[in-house]
Every structure is written in structure tokens, then in C-alpha cells.
């Protein structure tokens, strides 16, 4: 199977040849790849070098934590890549943005009202978690849509708090 893998805008053409070989560009490399203890931790021995890494599935990409550095990696097979290029490649920038709670916690305050115009970086919600107050800021300018939580309410991780149009 052939993949186009992208790290920091650099593309790698990687073919998984069999269980113990990958071809990257035109180099054929011996790999010995094992998950550790059934966790999202992987041990890779490649041409004798030993690496260990966390590999997490993100929503659209993979997060690879290697030697203290985080790499955002997208992996597409050739068909996926063609489809995306044909579609024009643009992720929708304009539509509605749903602000979700990044962690479970207690809504301490909501600093905006429905219909209010906000600027990028403006504080919208204060969420208390682990005894720290966290300011959730607008990722872009827009108008506040529906606010779905009240101050004093407990929220779960990923629960939608409000929307920005």
C-alpha cells in the first residue's frame, strides 16, 4: 500500500511493502514495529536504530510524540489524496464554529451574550478545572450564536459551550 504522508508541509511518499519493509522515496528500509503493552506507544527498530513514540489519532491527523517533540502528521493513501486535491483542498473556513469544553470542569463565567460581535482572542468563557481558571478565547472574529451553558454549570469534556458565526 502506498501513502502520501505530510509532516510540517513536507511530503513523504511511503510504501508499506510487507510486515518488515517500507519504501520511502526509493530507499527500501527494514523495519521492526511493535505496539508496547497494547498502548498507543510504539517501538520501531529501523535499520538498527531503536525509536519509541506515542502515536495518537487526532481528528484529521496523527500526533506523533517522539523524543519530546510533537509532530502533526497526515497520512493519505493515493486515492484519498486525489479526492482531496480534486475537491479544491480548502477546509471550510467560513461556517459555524462550535466552542467545546477542552476538559471537564465548572463554567465560572460567560463573558459574552448571544448576538454579540467578538474579536479573535477575546475571552468568551472561564472554565475551572483542577483548581485553575482557564480562559477560553475566540479562535476567530465573528458573532456569538447560541450559548448552551450557564455560569455555575458543570460540563463534560467536548461538550459544546457556544457557537460563533
Amino acid at each position: 500500500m502506498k501513502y502520501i504522508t505530510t509532516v510540517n508541509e513536507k511530503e513523504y511518499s511511503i510504501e508499506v511493502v510487507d510486515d518488515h519493509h517500507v519504501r520511502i522515496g526509493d530507499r527500501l528500509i527494514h523495519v521492526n514495529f511493535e505496539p508496547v503493552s497494547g498502548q498507543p506507544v510504539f517501538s520501531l527498530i529501523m535499520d538498527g536504530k531503536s525509536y519509541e513514540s506515542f502515536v495518537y489519532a487526532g481528528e484529521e491527523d496523527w500526533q506523533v510524540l517522539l523524543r519530546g517533540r510533537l509532530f502533526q502528521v497526515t497520512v493519505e493513501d493515493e486515492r484519498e489524496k486525489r479526492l482531496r486535491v480534486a475537491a479544491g483542498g480548502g477546509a471550510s473556513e467560513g461556517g459555524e464554529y462550535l466552542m467545546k469544553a477542552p476538559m471537564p470542569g465548572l463554567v465560572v463565567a460567560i463573558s459574552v451574550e448571544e448576538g454579540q460581535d467578538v474579536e479573535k482572542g477575546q475571552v468568551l468563557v472561564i472554565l475551572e478545572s483542577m483548581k485553575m481558571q482557564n480562559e477560553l478565547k475566540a479562535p476567530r472574529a465573528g458573532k456569538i450564536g447560541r450559548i448552551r451553558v450557564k455560569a455555575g454549570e458543570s460540563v463534560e469534556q467536548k461538550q459544546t459551550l457556544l457557537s460563533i458565526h
Partner: protein
Amino acid sequence: MFNKVLIANRGEIAVRIIRACRELGLETVAVFSEADRNALHVRYADEAYLLGPAPSRESYLRADKILDIARKSGANAIHPGYGFLAEREDFASKCAELGITFIGPKPSSIAAMGDKAEARATVIKAGVPVVPGTEDVGNMTNDDLLRIAPSIGFPLLIKATAGGGGKGMREVRSLEEMPTLLASARREAESAFGDGNVYLEKLVEGARHIEFQIMADSFGNVIHLGERECSIQRRHQKLLEEAPSPFLDDELRQKMGDVAVRAAKSVDYVNAGTIEFLVDKDRNFFFLEMNTRLQVEHPVTEMVTGIDIVAEQLRVARGRQLSYTQEQVQFKGHAIECRVNAEDPFNNFVPSTGRITHSLIPTGPGVRVDTGVYPGFEITPFYDPMIAKLIVWGETRAQAILRMRRALEEYRIVGVRTNIPFHQTLMDSHRFMGGQFDTRFVEERFSMDDAIEPSEANSEIAAILATLVSHNETERSAQKVRRNERDASNWKWVGRWERMHR
């Protein structure tokens, strides 16, 4: 003399105290919230009693329930750890009334040092230099504070009178932004300490945070165990501490140590405590506050002195003399502690919660880990995000940094994100290696991206790793589909059966 100790705390510090008690042959009583039934301190203690629901205010801050449990279990001493009830004069007094030994200073010392404004006044009288700021005792209104602020000068700090750990602290650059910041500081202080009072202090720029560990017994002996360098902070939260400070020489160490001992004596201090100083670029030092309790970062002092501070707390609380004179305290080598927090350093340090599914703790020579978590334990949003302290010792600071590097690289915690990569990046930073940093370093002159440019080779390896994981995942789900097809055969068979009988 007490023989059973109630530990009014949770997490790593509760475990730390239980260990010290056990090593001295003292029985231990744990208390726990509903979220902590399976916490390590509950598992390790001789006895354990439920306090109430998860929120601290309904559990670990419930002094009444804790005293009830002490009575019920026959615990005749209470160790408060840090945070929660550790610096509450009323709690220490109540213990005294009930004939329970509070393992810490006298209520009067807590009161004198706990109110930061009063503390300043007290040590000034003892000739200890302080940071300029509000000299008045607590309960100042916003109007008072706004009026006084210009005379102190900007930038200044709003600090919680009952505070500690950076909670309820705000930096103010101008009078205009002060009202909003006052409100949020009071709100945070109220939530963290049940006390919304604040005061003002001049912000010493380019300063280092250096603190001295004090030990005192009830015979009037007061010694210091040297300093800790705590300038590596983010949002006024300490992230890394080391001993000794790379900034002090023997002369300044002795001078500051003497002042620290004097400050402790000014409030008739007994037991372990910490005098925090700010030290400016020109080596002027100012008393900041005294923490009248065991400190999170006490292990770095233990590593360089060989003194078990918690055991010494217990001995002193049992009415013994200090085991060491000032001359007997010897420093050897260098120790560093990294606070491992459940927070994502690649996503603005947002707290991370969840169940720990796996962990691999670094071990070997010169490495110590103090933690209260283990695989299977759930990190909840109710408490402090610090889940472990990784402490190393080396013969020199350079050796300690190298050892810390290898220990951080070995450490695996799976299930929550941690700030271990932050510490790894810090260890690679030339300014940290050179000891050139102040309390603003992390926020202003450090970034997760800038330490060492990710090499081309590493990014290729990341690409290969992600591709292999993605490929295996696709293969596995393909197999699942095939298995489901087989599972669906019952229904195919039903279909056939139907046709057969049609």
C-alpha cells in the same frame, strides 16, 4: 506523644507522609473523597475514612469532618501536607483545643505569616528586607487598592492574602486594567482559599525566586537546610526546582540563610517552613512570604542534604530536638525536581483528565519519583493537575541535567497528556543549561518550538511511525469488517430459511 497520624491530604504528598510515618513505626489514617476511593494514599494507609463528594470544599477542606475522623479513629496527630488546610490558623487552633498534635507551626505563627500583609510588617520589624507594597493588613477594598497602587508604581502584583501557588495572583501593568484584574484575582482566591482578600506588591523585574528551607524545634533551635531555586514558573506556578541555586555563592547563601532564620524566629517558628525571597539581578534580596508548611519541592533539599524532612517534622512534633545543628548540615551534589502535570504542553497547557492506562516510571541511580497515581487510576478535574514529581541527584548540576534528560525520556504515562515534553525541551535549552533565567523566562523567552529544531531525520521517522500505525489500523478494521460479515451469517441463514420455506 502521638502514635497515630491522620493525613489530611491526598495525592503524592499524602503518600509521602504515610511513608515517613510507616518508617518511624507510626500508624496512619487516610481520608478520601468519593473520587479517591482507589487512590494510593487510601491503599497505603492503615486506616481510611470517606470525607464526602469529590469537590474539595465538600471533602478535603471539611475541617469538621476531618476532626471527627481523628477522634473516631484515635489519631492523636494530624499532618496537613500542603494546600487544603495546611495554612489555616483556625484548623491548627482547633487541633490544639482537641488535644491533637498539629504537625506544623503554632497557630500564632500561621496567622502571622498566613496573612501576607501582616507577615511583611512582622519581618520588617526583625530587620528583614521586603518587596515594596501595601503595608496595611488585609480587608482592603478595591477603592483602597486602586488609590494606593500608583504610589507603589506599575508593574505591580495583586496577590491573595491567604495565597500560595500563584492562585489569585495577577500582574497589573496599568491602573486602567486593574479593576478587572482585581475582580478575577478575588474570584480565584475565594475559590481556592475561601478568602477573597488581596494585597499589592511591586513587581521586581528580572528577579529570581529563591527560597530557604527552615527547620525549627520547640526548644528554640532554628536552622536552614539551604536554598532552592524556583524561578522556572508559568502563570506563577512553579514547574521545576533545584538545589542549590546556580545564582548563589557561599557568601550570599550564608547571608540569606541567616536572614531566613531570623524571619522564622520573628514568629517563634516551630517545625518545617520556607522563606521565599526575590533576588534581583544585582543580588539584592527581598522577603516575599513564608510558607508555614511542608513544600511541594522539599525533595530537592532532601537529596542534597540527606535529611528526611518529613521524618524530621514528625520527630520535632513529638517534642524532640532537631537531629542536626546548622554546622552538621552538609550539602552534596545537585538535585532537580520536575513537576509532572496532567496538562498538554502543545495545547496551551490545558489540563488533561482521564484514566491512566499504563505507566513506566524511570528508576536507577539518583532518581526518585514521588507520585500518587498508577495504571488504572483516574485523573479527575477536581484537584491539582500535578500527578508526579520526578527528582534526580547528580554530583554536579551538569550531571543532574543529563540524568534528568534520560529519566524524562524513559518516563511513560499513557491515558492523559503530561508536560513531560515541556521539561524535555527545557533541559535542551541553552539558557537553562547556563543557569541564566528569571521568573519570567518560561513565559517570555521560552517556547516549545525553539529549543532544538526538529531534525529532518526525526520528522521522517515520525512520518514512518504515523504511516505504519495508520496502515495497521486500516488493516485491522478491514479484518473486523470481514469478521462482522461472518457474524452476519446467522441473518443470511435466516434469509435462506425464509426462502426455503416460502
